[in-house]
């Protein structure tokens, strides 16, 4: 086994995982909300970008931002529909409602886009770089750098700006924040739209690695759960570290044991951590 190549793979996989999970981390940490349709939004992001490229003939570089925009707008619609539940912080109902949305998306997408696997081709994937016996593609570089930049910007916005302070105050106590004249509903919509847009962006960068199917999304949502719980609920830095850790684990497990069972293995890591450290790795 080529150790250097597996480490690169782990780094690349990990940055992809962290990128897919970032929306959930913020949604959970900054708004105390959940969205079980996360994996299906990933699927929609990939399929909308694919459809824009196929049907409208746009380039990849235009299709991905348009897909991010489309899924973001879908997020506004979803959040407006769920707003009464969100304002009551009724997590039980929100979980079930978003789980339902996920199944609606899977069914709707297979109706619109068909049930066949499709090739969502990124020009970045074709361009590879080789150093000795180690190789990676430009898509990997863009994913890694994009993820690091997004995490850095997000951390700065949440912790160092007035907007971030408003978001955190709503997370802490929505009623008290409203007494101070903050429009909590608008903050919730904003955070939810960020989640949807971020996962669509992640799909634009990560999905071209393999054929896309309307039934996909379950792996992504499980990996997101694992990262969010391992990284400590809502911790931006923690989820980045957990993403890289999980990426390394998946790369090595895939190379040494079995690539077909990596999601299951990631889940058993989560179970083990829950038994040993119930608060996640970040717990003190």
């Amino acid at each position, binding site marked *: 086994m080529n150790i250097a190549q597996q480490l690169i793979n782990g780094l690349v996989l990990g940055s992809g995982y962290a990128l897919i999970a970032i929306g959930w981390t913020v949604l959970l940490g900054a708004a105390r909300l959940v969205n079980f349709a996360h994996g299906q939004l990933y699927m929609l992001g990939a399929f909308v970008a694919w459809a824009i490229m196929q049907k409208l003939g746009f380039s990849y570089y235009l299709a991905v931002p348009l897909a991010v925009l489309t899924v973001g707008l879908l997020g506004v619609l979803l959040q407006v529909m769920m707003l009464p539940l969100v304002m009551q912080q009724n*997590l039980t109902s929100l979980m079930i409602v978003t789980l339902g949305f996920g199944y609606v998306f899977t069914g709707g997408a297979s109706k619109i886009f068909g049930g066949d696997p499709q090739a969502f081709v990124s020009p970045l994937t074709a361009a590879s770089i080789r150093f000795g016996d180690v190789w990676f593609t430009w898509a990997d570089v863009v994913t890694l750098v994009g993820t690091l930049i997004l995490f850095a910007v997000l951390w700065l916005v949440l912790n160092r700006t007035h907007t971030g302070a408003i978001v955190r105050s709503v997370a802490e106590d929505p009623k008290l924040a409203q007494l101070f004249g903050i429009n909590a509903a608008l903050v919730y919509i904003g955070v939810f739209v960020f989640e949807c847009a971020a996962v669509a962006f992640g799909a634009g960068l990560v999905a071209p690695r393999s054929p896309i199917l309307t039934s996909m999304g379950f792996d992504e*949502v499980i990996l997101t759960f*694992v990262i969010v719980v391992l990284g400590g609920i809502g911790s931006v830095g923690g989820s980045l570290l957990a993403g890289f850790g999980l990426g390394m684990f998946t790369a090595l497990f895939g190379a040494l044991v079995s690539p077909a069972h990596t999601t*299951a293995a990631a889940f058993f890591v*989560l179970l*083990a951590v829950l*038994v040993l450290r119930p608060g996640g790795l970040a717990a003190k």
Partner: protein
Amino acid sequence: MIKRHSTSFALALAGLAYFVPTAAGGAPAAYTACTTIAILAVMSYGADLILSYLGEVSLGHTVFWAAGGYAAALLSVNYGWNGWATAGGAIVVAIIFACLLGLATLRTREFVFSLVTYAAAVVAMEIAFNWS
């Protein structure tokens, strides 16, 4: 009145339910529909036990559903067990799964519990799907 006699009322309803398929015409479709209703009712009752008495939403219900189903199918087809024995075996297998999963997931609360149980359901589906 219903509240005071709720046990006898429920028993009477259950007794009446026995005659529903016959009353609906007695066609095989009527029996199938009633059996499905009964199965789903038992399954929802299981989920409701966790929600009502524990206050948590378990989304891992299908794990035990699948464990019971696979156990019953494997025991009856591969080992030729009869109906009662497979039912017993299915329950035992589901309980073993529940103990193992509960050991880890019950350390969590609220949405983390739901999240982990949901993950368990998806992973169980993947393992069953890749089973050779």
